[in-house]
């Protein structure tokens, strides 16, 4: 066994990476989380409520965020990417590209005076472009670390933030750095991204204002979101009384290069349908599906509840087309109800397209740096579904969360713990 170093590197600070970090750190090893965005938290931070218990996502995630931040064994590098990796299991040398955030993380207290002063408003990525943020910003209120970031692409160098910052934390001259890190084991927890549903022009996304995607819906119903939690149409601010959810878009579709099931869309849409009815009990909510895949613990029971208690209507059929009315901004869904073989035209005031998941941007580049094989679908290939479901070809590199394929939160969390277990076996051997 090669010389081991009691540190693990985790690529990606979403819920899987965070869980892995906590479980490794709990054993006394050091952990470095490399996160590309300005905050850890991943997709889960953007979600409003979680299935099947309707817990609010921020409520259950926030304690984990602070736990990770406060853990003495965990270092978080945000705005950072893996530059290069060399070495082997037990002894990797990793170069991390830490991009300039233009704010000193030690000095910034997250007070927000700078953002108040900043004159530049740009669409917020976290709010899916539905809300705005300043050019100096934190992505969301519970951002971890709670440190501001300057978006240089949109900064006009007016220096107003620099002047207003009492702690003199802002340095617009800051440059990117390379951080070197020695790791005994590496965990890939990069997560996944949403399929771009504008690839289906027939469904009207990006053509019609009132056709949105599921993550946009999450932000719309979220109290901290752009509408303060009011579910309204983007075209005219009207409260939608009839809402349709379209399933299997960018999933189970060989033609679009996404032959696999994305595993989460059925459940998040049922949850979203329930939330739509929570917001407006008088609304009529339809879900257009191919198969309802409510397979996890408590999922089927939740599906039944959506039907029985909330009155969400489920129609089995792949939507052929979404059309927009000329004046009202209303939409008409054309679908074959496969259970009655009828072609139906159903009018909605809002349509939500539920995208499948695809590998995150830069996945193949990262896989190349780590020397890992990928699946045909573009995820990290696992070693074996029974002998190594979180292992990769490299005995010191493990994978968890969506990096090896779509997963819901509990499965991502379990996999995070499992990857941590495997990593610590390697780390501990170095200590012996």
């Amino acid at each position, binding site marked *: 066994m090669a010389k081991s170093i009691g540190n693990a590197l985790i690529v990606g600070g979403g819920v899987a990476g965070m869980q892995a970090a906590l479980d490794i750190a709990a054993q006394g090893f050091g952990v470095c989380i490399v996160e590309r965005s300005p905050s850890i938290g991943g997709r889960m931070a953007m979600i409003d409520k979680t299935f099947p218990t309707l817990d609010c996502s921020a409520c259950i995630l926030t304690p984990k965020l602070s736990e990770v931040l406060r853990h003495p064994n965990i270092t978080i590098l945000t705005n950072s990417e893996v530059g290069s990796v060399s070495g082997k299991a037990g002894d990797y040398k990793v170069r991390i590209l830490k991009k300039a955030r233009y704010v000193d993380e030690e000095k910034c207290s997250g007070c927000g005076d700078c953002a108040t002063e900043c004159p530049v408003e740009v669409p917020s990525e976290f709010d899916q472009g539905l809300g705005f943020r300043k050019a100096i910003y934190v992505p969301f209120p519970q951002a971890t670390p709670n440190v501001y970031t300057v978006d240089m692409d949109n900064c006009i160098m007016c220096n107003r933030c620099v002047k207003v910052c009492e702690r003199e934390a802002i340095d617009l001259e800051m440059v990117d750095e390379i951080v070197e890190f020695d790791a005994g084991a590496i965990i890939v927890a990069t997560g996944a991204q949403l399929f771009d549903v504008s690839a289906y022009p027939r469904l009207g996304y990006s053509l019609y204002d009132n056709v949105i995607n599921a993550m946009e819906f999450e932000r719309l119903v979220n109290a901290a979101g752009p509408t303060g939690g009011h579910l309204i149409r983007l075209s005219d601010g009207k409260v939608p009384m009839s809402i349709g959810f379209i399933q299997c878009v960018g999933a189970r579709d060989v033609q679009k290069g996404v032959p696999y099931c994305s595993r989460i869309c059925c459940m998040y849409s049922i949850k979203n349908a329930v939330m739509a009815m929570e917001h407006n009990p008088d609304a009529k909510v339809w879900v257009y599906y191919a198969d309802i895949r409510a397979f996890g613990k408590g999922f089927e029971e939740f599906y039944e509840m959506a039907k029985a*208690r909330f009155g969400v209507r489920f129609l089995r059929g792949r939507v052929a087309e979404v059309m927009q009315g000329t004046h009202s901004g209303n939409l008409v869904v054309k679908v074959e109800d496969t259970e009655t073989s009828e072609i139906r035209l159903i009018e909605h005031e809002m349509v939500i397209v539920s995208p499948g998941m695809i590998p995150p941007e830069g996945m193949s580049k990262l896989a190349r740096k780590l020397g890992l094989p990928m699946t045909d679908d573009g995820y990290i290939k696992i070693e074996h579904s029974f002998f190594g479901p979180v292992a990769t070809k490299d005995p010191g590199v493990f994978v968890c969360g969506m990096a090896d394929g779509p997963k819901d939160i509990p499965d991502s969390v379990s996999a995070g713990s499992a990857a941590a277990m495997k990593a610590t076996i390697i780390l501990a051997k170095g200590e012996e």
Partner: protein
Amino acid sequence: MTTVEKKEVQAKKEWEPQIVAFCCNWCSYAGADLAGTSRIQYPPNARIIRVNCTGRISPEFILASLEMGADGVLVSGCHPGDCHYSSGNLKLRARLTIMKMAIEQAGINPDRIRLQWASASEAQIFADGVTTIVEQVRALGPLRREWK
């Protein structure tokens, strides 16, 4: 709000059953949490006091609640055999049986006390239990009347 509606609200406010609910942490308090997360709606008359186990509940707690003006008391715990502490709920059940007899002799309707088992997954049973005691007590009227 229109005048008519206001009157209705005021009329209702005259007397609403006040219920003290003792719930064990492991089953019924969790069941009540699940009722919330499942958005099950039930009457807002009960105030939950969390105890580790229903076995913790002394007869005094219930008697004092009634004496201080509660119209009813709900005790909710784990199903027999499922107690997190093995058997605390059975001890409580035994106490409560005797106590109900005692308060009946004192002239108080024993229906003002309700014992129910609701596990952490039985949100609906918990909510229904609250509805039941509220309705039961509402039918009986304010407890103060029985004191006379």
